[in-house]
């Protein structure tokens, strides 16, 4: 069964900002899926709709087969969510935060206390159990929110930029933990604007930009696509068949143009040698623009501007 299905999901906010322009996404049970995109792409909006914090404008959402319009409570019971912004009760003790959250999901009090202990220990917060959230560091707050999302033992864990603004060491430990949680059978969806994070953790990836999913594939395929560059070569002579060039993938665009895929770092000299050997004269050459590539350039720039 699919953990999450989105169909034609749109969101227009009250101020007439269109945050989602009809996205489709399917996440299989047990998957570890990244929703990657730059700031403002619509990630938090999509998560908000799935977790009942934002009203959708149109479209369908189903969580483990429970349609949000018809069986919202059943759908909610399957999800644990770690929001992007800290939303802890600042005056509540860590232990009580978890016990309360378990209670909201119907976990009886005694079991809730056991779970609170289990997840505080798991997130290395047990010695902070009697501290109020306000006294915690940023990284600890983030961990407390992860513990809170796990305390009712959800089948689908959604994390909205869980490592934004935490230092590298904590980021690593959160990554390890998420891998283990996923290993125990929990489906995980994670939003991020770090490609590195998605690459490290996720099997599948959906890339979202300006409210549209522009790529949805396995991580391996996306990386492969990114590691290739395509060039369009205009030829002096007409041809009617793409030439076979050793080591390059070539496609005929029209009788005067071919498109050549080159792995990054492969170099172009041999390409031109091969072309010369076939007496194909190149009159001009341009890089084929690739929306994925462009997006990644922006993500990388973004990352450099974001203070770590």
């Amino acid at each position, binding site marked *: 069964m699919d953990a999450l299905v989105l169909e034609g999901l749109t969101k227009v906010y009250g101020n007439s900002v269109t945050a989602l322009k009809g996205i489709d996404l399917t996440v299989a049970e047990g998957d570890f899926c990244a929703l990657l995109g730059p700031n403002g792409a619509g990630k938090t909006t999509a998560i908000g709709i799935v977790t009942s914090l*934002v*009203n959708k404008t149109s479209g369908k959402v189903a969580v483990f087969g429970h349609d949000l319009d018809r069986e919202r409570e059943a759908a909610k*019971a399957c999800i644990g969510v770690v929001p992007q912004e800290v939303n*802890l009760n600042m005056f509540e003790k860590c232990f009580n935060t978890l016990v*309360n959250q378990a209670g*909201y999901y*119907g976990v009886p009090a005694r079991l809730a206390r056991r779970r609170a202990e289990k997840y505080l220990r798991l997130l290395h917060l047990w010695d902070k159990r009697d501290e109020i959230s306000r006294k915690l560091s940023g990284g600890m707050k983030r961990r407390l929110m992860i513990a809170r999302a796990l305390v009712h*033992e959800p089948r689908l864990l959604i994390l909205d930029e869980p490592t934004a603004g935490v230092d590298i060491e904590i980021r690593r430990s959160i990554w390890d933990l998420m891998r283990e949680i996923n*290993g125990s059978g929990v489906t995980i969806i994670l939003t991020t604007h770090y490609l590195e994070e998605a690459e490290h953790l996720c099997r599948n990836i959906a890339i979202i930009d300006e409210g549209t999913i522009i790529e949805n594939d396995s991580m391996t395929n996306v990386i492969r696509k990114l590691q290739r560059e395509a060039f369009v070569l205009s030829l002096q002579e007409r041809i009617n068949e793409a030439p076979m060039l050793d080591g390059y993938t070539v496609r005929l665009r029209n009788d005067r143009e071919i498109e050549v895929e080159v792995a990054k770092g492969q170099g172009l000299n041999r390409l031109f040698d091969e072309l010369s050997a076939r007496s194909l004269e190149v009159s001009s050459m341009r890089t084929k623009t690739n929306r994925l590539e462009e997006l990644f350039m922006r993500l990388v720039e973004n990352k450099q501007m974001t203070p770590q």
Partner: protein
Amino acid sequence: MSASGRSATSQALAGAARPERSLLAINLVGLGTIAHKEVRRVLRIWVQTIIPPAITMTLYFIIFGSLIGRRIGEMDGVPYTTFIAPGLIMMAVIQNSFGNVVSSFFSSKLQQHLEEMLVAPLSVFTIVIGFVIGGVSRGLLVAALVTVVAMFFTDLRLEYPLVTFSVIVLVAMVFSLAGLLNAIFARNFDDISIIPTFVLAPLTYLGGVFFSISLLTPFWQNVALANPILYMVNAFRYGMLGASDIPLGIAFSIIVGAFLALFGLALVLLHRGTGIRS
């Protein structure tokens, strides 16, 4: 990952059993959780929640009851201090039930931890009742304290315990709901002080806490009758002292009517996500 290489973490997680809970069971546990949390909040910040109203009411008894009351003599056939006691208890209930829910709900909305409840499989019914239990608890706690204070100044009677008790609980529920509605619409701290200052306080002071409406001219009597708090104060006073300006049936209808209307409105607004979901 090989089976033997799995860490303790992973094993702990894998042991997670996921019993299907019925929605009723979830909501019952959830209601207990919200109520418990709300009551604990009242007790934790008792210096803000319990003590100030007790002090204010003590001052009312000293000034209006003992000092001025002695010169007034009787009102509606009872000593003035006795006359104002039920009204002051009612005033404490109104202010504190309202104040508790408005500040608890508004701050959870502002700090966004209301989201903890909104993502959970709780019905809005459960959430509303949970907050109301918090407001009623504080209202009744303060009422008990004011009653104890009142006993130092006057001999309190309890003519009709059932009426007294049901009125006080109903009124606490009505004003808890009113506080919730105020918090739902509020966008900033000004918005949560406007209603208590400009609506609740005047209606309470003019609601017959300190005087019998028989003192008013017929015109002003009719104006006073448009004030729902007048019915609450009088029904409560009737329960304690056996005397009222208002027929009891009308008072009860108005209180129950207000409760149902506010409760329905709160359910609809929370369901729609007014003020809490974009």
